[in-house]
């Protein structure tokens, strides 16, 4: 047997994909999914095997590249955080109609409790929405195993599969044993060269195919090694535990021995017969799922007139937030510790800008330039610079979705708040900001867009910025006039000058772009360290 390797859930997925013969991995970074693709990026093995990988401009382009790889008959994976799947929703929903050729696994990493996200949407709904099989691992080993299984199922049934994980699995390490090494596929065109041509006449037929595959998929869930029924002595309450919830349930029992009957679910669509069995055998059910009450809602039905179903909807489990063993213990009236309380003097320690960060100087200048106009006009975006919502800056008034700064600024300007300001990072700009800037330029909206260019995707750890060195050209080409594209150096010593530039552009009644450009202090330090190391070894 191979020795166990300590891997994060994310890393187990990446290693699983390598061992399952993946040929391409594509992603836009987003917590908690980033480490999957980082692992591929730094894996010698992936490099030797010639596995293609790319940090794509956004999740949509990432999934479409993967879909192309699958079209060509090779295995592909696209990884994103849950809200990234919103961006990729168009190719995702349609990929269920085109189907797959080479195995296609889409990974969505959900973030219940919003450790690092704007919402806690549950990606399993997307799987159900698209009528695709969903895997929800309960351990790092299962995550690894599911890559083999998932690619295999995808090729067998000719459909993409969705792997849904949550932050806790993504960022938790455990021992993983590698097995089953498969080689990559050769190029093999789809048997039907119109499979991916979703003209209505073709799409209608393929949608029927998709519908007809549902019974097969349910059968797969019924016989899945990841779903199983355990018959306990106590049948007063039956437990249905999905994904990680299974662990939080077992944690409450000596030697992990369950007194209750339970059904562990890690593969969807839901296995009806298994559900029927536990429903019939137990007096009531408790549904444990990390995320939304997807299973619970279906079992209760609209009128909730069957057996009693406990879960997030009846308050047995809190309606929001990540699960844990204590929450489950409470729901089952199992004795549990509450621990000592946190001392009253405890204060929060919110994240803040790194010392020397270019955003500090950019925001200091922007705040001063905005003094004469008053508050409430700065639409911002998603990245480190969102921290300017907090003291001492208190600069920004929005953070909604990738790219929304520019378009919302256009909206508030249309409503009459002039000048309107947008603040967006370089990577967020190329992710989803360019089309919004085109809208603004076409309408000659009186907005001032600050593209904070630190040359990297900083928040997620410094992945390459897809638009590096191209920002001015992009702005020009969507119609921003050259004289209103101003590059400034966000350093204290240029503060007065920078305030002046921002004021000039705020006064301009058209689209201006100001680019405060200075490298991210984290990536700069990393480079300096590497350079020093090279000099020592040289």
């Amino acid at each position, binding site marked *: 047997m191979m*020795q*166990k*390797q*300590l891997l*994060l859930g994310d890393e187990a997925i990446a290693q699983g994909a390598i061992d399952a013969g993946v040929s391409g991995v594509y992603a836009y970074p987003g*917590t*908690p999914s*980033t*480490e999957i693709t980082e692992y591929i990026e730094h894996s010698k093995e992936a490099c030797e095997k010639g596995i293609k990988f790319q940090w794509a401009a956004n999740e949509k382009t990432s999934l479409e590249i993967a879909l192309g790889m699958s079209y060509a008959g090779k295995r592909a994976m696209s990884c994103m955080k849950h809200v990234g799947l919103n961006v990729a929703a168009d190719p995702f929903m349609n990929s269920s109609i085109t189907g797959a050729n080479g195995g296609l696994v889409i990974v969505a990493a959900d973030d219940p409790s919003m*450790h*690092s996200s704007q919402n806690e949407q549950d990606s399993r709904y997307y799987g159900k929405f698209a009528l695709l099989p969903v895997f929800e691992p309960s351990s790092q080993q299962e995550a690894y195993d599911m890559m083999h299984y998932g690619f295999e199922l995808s090729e067998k049934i000719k459909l993409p599969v969705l792997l849904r994980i949550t932050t*806790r*699995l993504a*960022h*938790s*390490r*455990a*021992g993983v044993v590698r097995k089953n090494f498969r080689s990559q596929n050769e190029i093999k065109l789809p048997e039907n060269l119109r499979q991916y041509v979703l003209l209505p006449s073709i799409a209608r037929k393929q949608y029927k195919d998709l519908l007809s595959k549902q019974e097969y998929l349910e059968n797969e869930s019924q016989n899945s090694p990841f779903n199983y029924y355990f018959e306990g002595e106590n049948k007063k309450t039956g437990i249905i535990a999905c994904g*990680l919830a299974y*662990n*939080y*349930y*077992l*944690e*409450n029992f000596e*030697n*992990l021995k369950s007194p209750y009957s339970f059904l562990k679910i890690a593969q969807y669509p839901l296995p009806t017969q298994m559900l029927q069995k536990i429903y019939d055998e137990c007096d009531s059910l408790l549904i444990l799922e990390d995320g939304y009450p997807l299973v619970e809602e279906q079992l209760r039905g609209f009128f909730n007139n069957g057996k009693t179903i406990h879960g997030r909807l009846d308050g047995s489990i809190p309606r929001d937030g990540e699960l*844990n*063993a*204590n929450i489950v*213990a409470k729901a089952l009236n199992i004795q*549990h*510790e*509450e*621990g*000592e*309380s*946190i*001392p009253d*003097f*405890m*204060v*929060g*320690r*919110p*994240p*803040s*800008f*790194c010392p020397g960060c270019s955003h500090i100087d950019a925001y200091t200048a922007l705040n001063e330039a905005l003094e004469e106009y008053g508050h409430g006009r700065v639409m911002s975006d998603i990245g*480190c610079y969102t*921290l300017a919502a907090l003291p001492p800056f208190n600069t920004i008034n929005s953070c909604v979705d990738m790219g929304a700064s520019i378009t919302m600024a256009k909206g508030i300007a249309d409503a009459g708040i002039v000048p309107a300001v947008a603040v967006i990072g370089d990577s967020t700009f190329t992710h989803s900001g360019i089309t919004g800037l085109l809208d603004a330029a076409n309408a000659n909206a009186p907005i001032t867009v600050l593209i904070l260019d630190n040359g990297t995707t900083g*928040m*997620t750890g410094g992945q390459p910025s897809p638009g590096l060195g191209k920002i001015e050209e992009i702005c020009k080409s969507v119609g921003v006039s050259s004289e209103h594209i101003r590059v400034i150096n966000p350093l204290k010593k240029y503060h007065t000058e920078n305030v002046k530039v921002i004021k000039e552009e705020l006064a301009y009644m058209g689209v201006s772009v100001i680019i405060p450009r200075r490298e991210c202090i984290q990536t700069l330090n990393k480079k300096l360290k590497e350079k020093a190391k090279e000099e*020592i070894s040289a």
Partner: protein
Amino acid sequence: MKKDIILAGVGGQGILSIATVIGYIAVNQNLFLKQSEVHGMSQRGGDVSSHLRISSSPIAADLIPKGKADMILSVEPLESLRYLPFLTKDGWIITNNKPFINIPNYPEIETILNTITQKQQHVLIDADRIAKESGSARSANMVMLGAASPFLGFDDDCFFNAMKAIFGRKGEDIVQKNILAFQAGKSFAIAERV
């Protein structure tokens, strides 16, 4: 054998390196391990924690339930108290006593230290000073690991081998500095307990 440990600190203080060393030992001894980390926003000077669980039998949850942690090992005193609800009744707080003040409303350090010393079994250690004296100001995390080592039940050699394997690519010098810091932390903790 079963140890549930909360590692605590502020982004950049190296608590994940502590976890990596213990994790390496656990895997080499064929123990079960789960170690949950905090990534993302919290790394920008925010609070960081990790749940580290080691056991000779399978472990269910990635998170330690409340009131079940044997130890809180913290590289910062205020942070050691943030996770108090997780600590078991007779559990240990092993913490650096040097505050890391990057917030304007940091509580009185005396209040923090008094709470630790009056309420809990504890080892308070000036890890910053000991790290500096042992030759590497950046090794406060390894001083803390050394201080915690008598409670973990692994031989010193296990720790040294783990450090060699993990820090080896950074050079022999770094490995030695970390080992010295570890030893200084351990000596202090043993003297403190007597």
